[in-house]
């Protein structure tokens, strides 16, 4: 009970954060999932980790509404007619966002907003103001950096106005990804995006061709960088902390042939159980208006199988260093391939989006991970030169349709040479990189692992002041524990 009182008294929480923390506390009093002893052991050891997703999942972790449908039909439940003009559209979108749940209770996907807005543009300068107010509204009301907007791949007037607003507002929310395809995206939109990311650390670049092929058409990038089906989402994300699993043995063969398959199987079982509870026992898919009005459909859902700490695992067993020596990277590929194969062999009846399959996800880590590198990333401080780095990550990106990405801070001089950044992005995508983020080493808004945080807000929190956006707390943890401010700055090396 004292924990409950602690939450009520905690000075660093806003009202909203306090209510959500209380709800999480309440949920965790339940013990309703059927978890066998072996899985529970692995959970207790921190090897299988559900990222505090809660003991009784009552909504999918990530929801990806079909916003096109909403714009076309309006919503009966929300008593909204289809929008008639730009202001009407933006207002109605904001209303809908308020009703899209997720693990953090904030929407993690708010649409391909340029395509949504563009048909309503009538006068660029006037409309720009509305778009800017809209973006500002999102930053101040969806106070969670996992909120993600998409733009592109085609250039639109709205897309360019959105980027312009981002440069002016310089806010951390929403996270933005441009779906980028050199053959479809205009050079102007690419340059505009690069210019913007050197100011405000977004948008990131998604390899549109790669995603489209895997998703057999359109897709959404939600939360950090997770590819998901539109009109669907992800039930749950459970990760294996490979580093902790590796620490159980000195012997690589034992790791790859016994410990790893066993942990993967138990993780799958645990995910199956979470999905079963959510779909069969809770009311979400029976009563949510999102389902009833077809904004999401259970047939477009999947689940995400996460992993972290590949680098540390390889470095434990290999004579080489992960990210530097080929033999070490080869071992990394072998481990990921093993996981990939096992996960793909499993079928869950509720994961119809991908024929019953879960998708792999290179998880970015959480604030209290210490000495565990995100997903397949090379540890901060050990990054090789950027060309080698990009070639290395391309070996891993193909296995992770529901999310993997790497982050590169660039020297200020690149602000004056946007073409140079375009060379890097185009080269990366050609090499097989799925997703990359770029920012200027001296910006206030920086990318922590997938999400964005302002350095100035981390300082505020350090001084014990409450901050509006909940992810700042995670950002501080990452700065302290994962050295994210010490990433190798690119250019002139």
């Amino acid at each position, binding site marked *: 009970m004292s924990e409950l009182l602690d939450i009520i008294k905690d000075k660093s929480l806003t009202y909203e954060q306090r209510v959500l923390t209380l709800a999480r506390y309440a949920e965790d009093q339940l013990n309703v999932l059927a978890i066998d002893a072996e899985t529970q052991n692995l959970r207790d050891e921190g090897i299988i980790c559900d990222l505090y997703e809660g003991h009784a999942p009552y909504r999918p972790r990530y929801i990806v509404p079909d916003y096109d449908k909403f714009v076309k039909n309006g919503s009966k439940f929300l008593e909204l007619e289809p929008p008639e003009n730009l202001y009407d559209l933006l207002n109605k979108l904001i209303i809908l966002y308020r009703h899209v749940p997720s693990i953090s209770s904030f929407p993690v996907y708010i649409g391909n907003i340029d395509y949504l807005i563009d048909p309503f543009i009538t006068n660029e300068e006037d409309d720009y103001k509305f778009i800017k107010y809209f973006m500002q509204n999102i930053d101040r009301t969806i106070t969670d950096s996992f909120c993600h907007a998409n733009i592109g791949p085609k250039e639109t007037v709205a897309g360019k106005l959105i980027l312009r607003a981002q440069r002016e507002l310089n806010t951390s929310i929403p996270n933005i990804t441009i779906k980028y395809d050199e053959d479809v995206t205009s050079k102007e939109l690419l340059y505009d995006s690069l210019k913007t990311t050197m100011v405000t650390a977004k948008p990131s670049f998604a390899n549109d061709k790669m995603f489209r092929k895997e998703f057999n058409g359109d897709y959404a990038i939600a939360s950090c960088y997770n590819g998901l089906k539109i009109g669907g989402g992800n039930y749950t994300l459970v990760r294996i902390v490979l580093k902790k699993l590796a620490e159980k043995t000195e012997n690589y063969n034992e790791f790859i042939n016994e410990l790893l398959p066993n942990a993967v199987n138990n993780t799958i079982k645990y995910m199956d159980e979470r999905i079963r509870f959510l779909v069969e026992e809770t009311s979400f898919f029976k009563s949510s208006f999102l389902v009833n009005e077809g904004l999401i459909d259970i047939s477009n859902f999947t689940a995400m199988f996460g992993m972290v700490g590949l680098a540390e695992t390889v470095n434990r067993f290999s004579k080489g260093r992960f990210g530097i020596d080929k033999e070490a990277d080869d071992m990394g590929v072998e481990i990921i391939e093993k996981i990939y194969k096992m996960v793909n062999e499993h079928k869950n009846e509720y994961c119809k989006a991908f024929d019953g399959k879960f998708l792999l996800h290179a998880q970015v880590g959480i604030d209290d991970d210490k000495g565990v590198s995100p997903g397949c990333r090379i540890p901060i401080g050990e990054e090789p030169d950027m060309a080698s780095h990009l070639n290395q990550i391309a070996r891993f990106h193909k296995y992770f349709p529901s999310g993997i990405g790497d982050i590169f801070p660039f020297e200020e001089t690149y602000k004056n040479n946007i073409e*140079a950044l375009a060379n890097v992005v185009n080269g*990366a995508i050609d090499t097989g990189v799925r997703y990359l983020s770029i920012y200027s080493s001296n910006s206030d808004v920086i990318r922590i692992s997938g999400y964005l945080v302002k350095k100035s807000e981390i300082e505020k929190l350090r001084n014990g002041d409450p901050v509006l956006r909940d992810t700042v707390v995670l950002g501080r943890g990452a700065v302290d524990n994962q050295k994210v401010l010490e990433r190798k700055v690119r250019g002139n090396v």
Partner: protein
Amino acid sequence: MIKYGYIRKIIYFSAIDGPGNRTVIFLQGCNFNCLSCHNPETIPIFNNLNMENTEVQLMSVYDILKVLDKNKSFIRGVTISGGECTVQFEFLLDLVMNLKKHGYEVYLDTNGSLEISKFQQMLHFVDKIIFDLKVFEEKEHIKLTGASNRKVKRNIKIAAVSHQIYEIRTVVIPKFIDNYKNVDKISKFIASLDKNIQYKLTTYRQQGVRENLLKTNSPSKKQMSNLKEICNNNGLLNVIVN
């Protein structure tokens, strides 16, 4: 016969040595001895590796191509700089020929002092040149660099005719010479060749420079923008200050 060059350093990604992302190869050795040189360690000309320096490596054209290979997808081109890259003429020629053969866009960053005939030969194998034109008056040029600038001006004229100048640069060093006069003359000279040539005025910074050679300081922003105005008044259309 395989040719080897003395390489001071290779920067894999650079945004400040020509358009786009570029790999920059710094060759050791210079025939000038500028009081304002920011990399004086690159001045000594090497004849063998026994000279006391572990940072200079002997590399063949093949070695360099191998290093570039992994970079190729991410860069627009290669810039060769120094020291003064043309000091190792034979090697440089071999290098640029091979770079072109492998499809690289090649820029040279040079003080422009190479013999005219050799320079013309070199021009066939490079895309563009970045020149330093430090001082316009020959006497003052000798005072700053220890060498004449007659060839520099001639080579600039030659490269202008074939539209192979990417940029001409002048470092603005207060007190040493009258910068207004110097920049006025240089900008008139450039404008007489082609008004579109990019001219960059660089702010002198003490950092890295050999101490006590020049007792001076950095020019103010105001001074730099005044100089830019002079260039614009003389008709230059692309003037950059940095």
